């Protein structure tokens, strides 16, 4: 009789590292946070699978926010940056084929959205969305402009630090994640109630991209590096080979 060690599914999500649902300083969370405990259960194929996206769905400018909404011959206004990094799993392995979608305000802090209430102007050449699919080593990059900080209706003096929103569709619905990237050195990071939804200072620091001047594209763009980590899939050593890779 054999009794292989079967490590099914994904590493348990660390709920202490992740933000709580109810974080009253972020006022909107008060009425939108479940009060009951989440139901734990043995996950299965529905949670361990995800749709597959091919690079053929991407247009050539999908990851270039400076150009993908601009009129021919024009560009979005603002400090030019390249945001690059890798999507890793918790074992440190690069994750290929991850759909990475990004959205952000323009360099004045204004979103192109019906519900936007900030009086800063729109940039006619900036839409604010981009997407890409990670390469074989999990790498991705976006060219964009530095988003501006903006005021928002929470406390009377709340401003969001400059940030880029990211959505990640990995290899499993259990890995589905939306997060935000912040910029090294921004003092507003430590005053933000949305960032404050995360208790652990080290966890917050993992959301801050580093400014890598050595990688600067001369007379073009500064480079920020930002890695993201999705839950790791357990591997099983079964009949003398590893499964689940």
């Amino acid at each position, binding site marked *: 009789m054999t009794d292989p060690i079967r490590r099914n599914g994904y590493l348990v999500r660390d709920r202490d590292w992740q933000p709580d649902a109810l974080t009253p300083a972020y006022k909107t969370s008060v009425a939108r*946070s479940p009060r*009951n405990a989440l139901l734990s259960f043995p996950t299965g194929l529905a949670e361990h699978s995800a749709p597959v996206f091919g690079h053929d769905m991407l247009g050539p400018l999908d990851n270039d926010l400076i150009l993908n909404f601009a009129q021919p011959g024009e560009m979005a206004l603002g400090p030019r940056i390249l945001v690059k990094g890798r999507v890793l799993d918790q074992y440190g392995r690069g994750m290929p084929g991850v759909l990475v979608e990004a959205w952000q305000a323009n360099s004045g802090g204004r979103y192109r959205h019906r519900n936007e209430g900030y009086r800063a102007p729109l940039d006619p050449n900036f839409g604010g969305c981009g997407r890409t699919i990670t390469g074989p080593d999990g790498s991705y990059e976006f060219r964009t402009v530095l988003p501006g900080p903006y005021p928002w209706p929470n406390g009377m003096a709340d401003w969001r630090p400059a940030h880029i929103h990211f959505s990640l569709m990995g290899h499993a619905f259990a890995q589905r994640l939306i997060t935000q990237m912040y910029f090294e050195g921004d003092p507003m990071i430590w005053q933000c109630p949305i960032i404050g939804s995360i208790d652990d200072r080290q966890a917050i620091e993992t959301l801050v991209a580093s400014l890598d001047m050595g990688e600067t594209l001369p007379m073009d763009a500064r480079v920020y590096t930002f890695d993201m980590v999705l839950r790791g899939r357990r591997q099983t050593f079964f009949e003398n080979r590893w499964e689940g890779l």
Partner: protein
Amino acid sequence: MVQKHALLKETPSQTAGPYVHIGLTPNVSGIGGVYAEDPGATMKTGPVQGPEISLSGHVYDGTGAVVRDALVEIWQPDAAGLFNAAEETRGTPDPNFTGWGRCATDLDSGLYSFDTVKPGRVPVADGRLQAPFITVWIVARGINIGLHTRAYFADEEAANAEDPLLTRIEHRARVPTLMAQPEGDGKYRFDIVLQGDNETIFLDM
């Protein structure tokens, strides 16, 4: 001290915020011309196998107000219970059915809606069959980390009665929060309640 073998920590979640539409459904939010089609806008790429259904509903907050700036994604197998995914090893799924849909709740009415197929049954690891269900994921302003739940079908009484997840729910009065209600003609209604008396059961996964 002991040896250190640290796994990396999962990136912390942050709210999708009020402008999630810009990134995830740009075409329906007025940012046309960047992508040919919003991802997940269509789940059927041709004639599909099995019964076609719609799944729609509202998202409610703890005061009973409709949440008009949420985004809902669904993920499910085809009518035969096969996922259109790399992890599917049990057979060939319907090539005209993606299984994945994304829909923002309407900025005015708050309604979300998916045109999809009735999912087939999928076994769990020990071989028991699950009742048909659709995986549902909700994000919005005010939601710090995406909420997972399942839409089962209220008209699948026999299958629901033996479903491994449904039968492990201790608070039986809450089970109906996971049931999409048939409204005839293949239409199912699945409302999601974020908080309060009829709070939907959300899943830890």
